[in-house]
């Protein structure tokens, strides 16, 4: 299985642990991820609110590079990259005026995009291409952890063929397949506040407080995430949340790749476990 791989800015900076565990798990499962040459930011958050066109062009440029190399599918690990790159495709298919502008901008940097590239999340690849049975067959150490699967709000939104917007279930299945006990978790597709953490901290803290709070109420030992931004908000701000709401959360927030990797027999160091703010030793003790 070979795919073009778009790591996104985070995986080369704040979420190196996501990158490392992604690569480690991909190797074990025989998934080859070929990083796109000369890729750029997908154009999320700051850019979208200032210039939707610029943001779309940034995404389209990445897809044009993939297309020029003959790739039909590009894999991403970040929910926001997932949404942004897909949006470029939506513009291409549904908005002729926008498409014209994007094409013109790409032409300015000597690129052309036919709009055929499919964008897929790594979770989709693991669950639907590699397959739950194959993964279950490679489990060396069943997880035996109670996990709250947190998908974030962008994996199923806007609506796509991969996940349900309100009640996604693919990660539930994946984590169950590697031996974890997945707790019923209603906050699984709620918003973590995203970049509001930097501009309207009050709002984002409250959202994260509810997400972690419910996971704790449900008896989860770990929250599993699929997005670097969610991970940063839930993990990096737990102290602030505790101070603000008088709680005593010590909820580790790990990437699903790290958890699957553990089950597949990889070492903590290979998966970069322990790079987060909340200590994991209390629950992960292999």
């Amino acid at each position: 299985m070979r795919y073009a791989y778009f790591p996104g800015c985070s995986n080369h900076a704040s979420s190196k642990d996501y990158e490392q565990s992604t690569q480690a798990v991909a190797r074990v499962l025989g998934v080859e991820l070929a990083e796109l040459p000369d890729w750029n930011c997908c154009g999320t958050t700051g850019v979208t609110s200032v210039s939707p066109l610029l943001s779309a062009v940034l995404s389209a440029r990445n897809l044009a590079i993939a297309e020029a190399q003959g790739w039909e599918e590009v894999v991403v690990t970040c929910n926001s990259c997932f949404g942004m790159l897909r949006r470029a495709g939506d513009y291409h298919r549904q908005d002729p005026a926008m498409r014209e502008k994007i094409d013109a901008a790409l032409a300015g940097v000597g690129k052309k995009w036919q709009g055929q590239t499919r964008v897929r999340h790594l979770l989709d690849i693991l669950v639907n291409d590699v397959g739950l049975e194959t993964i279950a067959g490679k489990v060396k150490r069943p997880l035996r952890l109670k996990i709250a699967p947190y998908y974030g709000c962008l994996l199923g939104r806007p609506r796509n063929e991969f996940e349900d917007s309100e009640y996604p279930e693919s990660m539930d299945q994946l984590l169950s397949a590697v031996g974890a006990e997945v707790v019923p978790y209603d906050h699984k597709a709620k918003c973590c506040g995203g970049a509001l953490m930097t501009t309207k901290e009050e709002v984002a803290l409250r959202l994260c407080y509810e997400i972690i709070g419910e996971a704790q109420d449900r008896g989860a030992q770990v929250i599993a995430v699929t997005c670097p931004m969610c991970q940063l908000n839930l993990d990096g701000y737990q102290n602030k949340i505790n101070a603000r709401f008088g709680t005593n959360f010590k909820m580790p927030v790990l990437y699903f790749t790290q958890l699957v990797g553990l089950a597949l027999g990889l070492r903590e160091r290979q998966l970069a476990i322990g790079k987060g703010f909340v200590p994991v030793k209390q629950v992960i003790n292999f």
Partner: protein
Amino acid sequence: MLEEIRIGVYVCHCGSNIADKVDCPAVAAYASQLPHVVVARDYQYMCSDPGQELIRQDIKELKLNRVVVASCSPRMHEPTFRKVCESAGLNGYLYEMANIREHCSWVTEDPQQATEKAKALVRAAVARVVHHEPLFERWAPVNPNILVVGGGIAGIEAALKVAAAGNKVWLVEKSPSIGGNMARLDKTFPTLDCSACILTPKMVSVAQDENITLLTYAEVEQVEGYVGNFRVTIRKKARSVDLNKCTGCGRCQEKCPVEVPSEFEAGLAMRKAIYTPFPQAVPNKPAIDREHCRHFTRTKGKCRVCFNVCQVGAIDYDQEDELVTYECGAIIVATGYGLFDPSVGPQWGYGRYDDVITAIQFERLVNASGPTKGKVVCKDGRVPERIAILHCIGSRDENYHPYCSRICCMASLKLAHLAREKTGAEVYNFYIDLRAFGKGYEEFYNRILEEGVNFIRGKGAEVTQKDGRLVVRGEDTLLGRYREVPVDLVILNTALEPQPDATKVAQIFGIQRSADGFFLESHPKLEPLKTATDGVFIAGCCQGPKDIPDSVAQGAGAAAEALSLATAGKVKISPVVASIDPDLCSGCRMCLPLCPYGAISFNEEKKVAEVNETLCKGCGTCAASCGSGALNVRHFTRNQILTQIEEVLAV
């Protein structure tokens, strides 16, 4: 000798509808210079009496032999102006309409462009009308028999009204009993009448009326013919029970070993494989559901329990589907609605949590003859202390159905009342807007408010579970706060949607559908019961969500429509049909298989195709396919259409 062509052109202002965008006097002035135009005028309202009189006078005084009116859509006023011409002694088909309202003023921003477009449309109409020929309408007799499809309250009402007028009517219902959705309801808003008590007498009347032939467990398969003269093929599904012998004693149902979730009880109780759907069914005689019956499935003929216990020998395993034909003059389609399946939206927890149920399930729960004998209980038998009713589940929601299902607000109020009456529970209504639109409805709403029911203005966004209790989350838009309400039972008031087989039914009867999937009426206001197919009428929820009073009114209205056809005894048949020039026809027979109505046959002697004008509906498929140009649809000839196109495009 060719007569001199003398055309009158009339440009309508339609108040400000056209005149706001189109410079009507300028269009009239322009028209007056076109070839053959003798007079061109503009006027406030051409369709008004004085407007019509203007045309009439001109025809007489100026000896006009062609008329063009530039106004609205021909769907609106073509018949009006055709009549005006005829009343002045001019054949109605020597008239042409230019649509400068729907096709021009309403859809054009710039007045100058609108005026130019109006001129082009008028120019094309003037050029076209030159080639018009007088055509003559024919009359066809109308069969006084009427067919009603669907045995819900709308269909029942229609059948009873037709029968009362003395006409024969066949009522076809696909399930084993008539009664439809209304039979499943407990009480009706706002009067709180017992639904069954007001419905069952009507059902019995249907069974007893000698003018009504009731065909249950039957479906219409094919409709041939045309208004006044339909020939309908109906499949009577094998019931496996001889209705003439069966006494309805019910012993077979007691002994049948197979249990299936009951459709009537919305899955809350079981029924047998041989079953009457509910105690007051009409006819009160069972049918065998062959999909589940052991005789027909697992045991391959060995299980004969019902056959053995039947004392009158009514069970007939060898019965086969039977096709019957019925000739009638008009058809009333009242096939009702389906209900939105809330498990499509996992956020509402339907199917995940036992105590999340739909409104129709609650109707059965609260009904004295329902699965719990009217006791409102949770799955585990507890009496709920707190109940939430979520409005607009699947309705007014971009993700599912954008339309309002209309009856759910009032139904929710009724359910809130029944819930409080039966359990004393605190009831929370999560609503977007409360639409109490009918007579006595607002008063009912006030009554429910006084009864202490809680109303939270905000859609119930999701249902979750906390500490073993259901929690409804939503935004209270009056408080501007996010709220979580713990409850024991959640009732989802789901959207009404088109029947799952609406596509098929629409095809069989030649009915169009609106964007929401419901059947489309001819005119949303003035012809709510007619369809695009003459002689086929619609009533009740197949046209869109409506409550019982509206469904009953439409059932009676559709009966009146059908009866006015039947009483007139004859119907005008449009002369706009295909015709074949035998001198040009090469006898290639290309057109024969293309005709959807089987109206073209081949004359072996003359080696040319011929059109049966009674069957032809003037669709034009044959004309488009004819390689030698022998086929033309009258009033839409090649010459007429090509001339019109040329002039629209001319600069």
